[in-house]
């Protein structure tokens, strides 16, 4: 396509910022709504500790809103920071900012959605055991901070894409930029949801069995860390695409290779991320109910999550085959 530099620049800025903030806002909005809904139910059950719950809910929503703030940061950067040579801007700049938008948009979507569950369950926990509300609040903040890791990865990839945008227009470079964003963003989407689900389960369990606070928190942290593996695969493939790809085949073929690899590792990460989160949530509840059997449950959780992540590994294999083996 032969478009003028100014057209490419403005197209990229508007579409990229739109994707970043459009998708990035949805997750946090749903998550905060969930948190508020659960807080309402909890307040109805225990109106006496209303102010305590209100505080927990507000803290949870504030911390859970930060993925969408990352999206806002990237969106503002895309809109207001112009490239060094505006007269040389072409399709590559367009692809880079759209890729950055995809990355942080979907990444913030997942993490924002995920951060809502621990906040809601924490309010529930405060209602069940008002005198142990500090446990609930602390573990909520820790769980949310870990659930935000995927969106932080997405932010890193998005900013690298913006700052390393190339001049001119060629199909494989465009594919690399958009593909890196897609791979990172969509895989972070699943991991963020899963990680948040795990934290939500753990907070629910801590609310019910507050005495098992320590072991539950440990199971939650390990479970969440495993949930993030698909997002880390996505980040790995994005970094490989941006920095470690040798000479890619020119034209449409190169574009197809990187796009295929990005779709594989990106969408392939959604299922394992969410699935591992479901496992971790149940494992946290089981650990809290039977703290004496914590290592047995932890081992079962790790085995189950490892099998659930084998599909993410297949996706990674297909992506690496596409990038390096197929001629």
């Amino acid at each position, binding site marked *: 396509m032969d478009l003028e530099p100014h057209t490419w620049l403005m197209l990229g800025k508007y579409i990229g910022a739109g994707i970043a903030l459009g998708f990035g806002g949805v997750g946090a909005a749903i998550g905060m709504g969930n948190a508020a809904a659960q807080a309402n139910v909890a307040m109805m059950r225990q109106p006496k500790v209303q102010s305590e719950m209100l505080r927990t809910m507000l803290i949870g929503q504030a911390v859970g809103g930060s993925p969408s703030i990352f999206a806002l940061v990237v969106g503002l950067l895309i809109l207001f920071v112009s490239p060094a040579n505006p007269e040389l801007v072409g399709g590559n700049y367009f692809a880079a900012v759209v890729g950055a938008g995809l990355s942080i948009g979907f990444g913030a979507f997942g993490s924002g959605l995920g951060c809502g569950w621990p906040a809601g369950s924490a309010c529930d926990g405060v209602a069940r055991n008002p005198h142990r509300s500090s446990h609930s609040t602390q573990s909520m903040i820790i769980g949310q901070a870990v659930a935000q890791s995927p969106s932080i990865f997405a932010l890193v990839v998005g900013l690298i894409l913006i700052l390393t945008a190339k001049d001119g227009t060629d199909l494989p470079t465009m594919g690399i930029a958009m593909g890196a964003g897609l791979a990172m963003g969509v895989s972070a989407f*699943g991991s963020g949801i*899963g990680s948040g689900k795990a934290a939500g389960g753990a907070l629910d369990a801590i609310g019910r069995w507050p005495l098992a606070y320590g072991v539950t928190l440990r199971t939650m942290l390990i479970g969440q860390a495993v949930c993030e593996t698909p997002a880390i695969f996505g980040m790995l493939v994005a970094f490989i695409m941006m920095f470690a790809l040798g000479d890619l085949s020119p*034209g*449409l*073929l190169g*574009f*197809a*290779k990187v*796009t*295929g*690899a*990005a*779709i*594989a*590792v*990106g*969408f*392939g*990460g*959604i*299922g*394992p*991320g*969410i*699935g*591992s*989160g*479901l*496992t*971790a*949530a*149940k*494992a946290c*509840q*089981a*650990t809290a*109910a*039977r703290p004496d*059997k914590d290592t*047995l*449950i932890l081992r*079962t*959780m790790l*085995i*189950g*999550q490892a*099998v*659930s*992540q084998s*599909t*993410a590994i*297949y*996706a990674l*294999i*297909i*992506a690496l*085959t*596409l990038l390096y*083996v*197929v001629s």
Partner: protein
Amino acid sequence: MMDPTTILTLMNTVAAQVPEAAVATGISGTALIKAGALIGAGICMGFGAIGPGIGEGFAAGKACEAIGRSPQEAGLLTRTMLIGQAVSESTGIYSLVVALLMLFVIS
């Protein structure tokens, strides 16, 4: 129901137009097919991995729950979980096989 001759004519028209349109933008038909196979392999593996991932995670979660209830049956429960996951995994393996076929046989 369209009659067969019309469909055939339509297909011929479409087939005749594809190379022409492609030549105009400098992309040959074979390259287009290969590119389609490569992107298709990515889509196949990517979307195909969603279901097994969630399903296996669900199975593993229930197994953890059950072990929490009756830890003395841990061996049986883990075995059942692994078998269930292996069955659930099969669709993921189909995706892998189809993706590899597209990468190495078709393209």
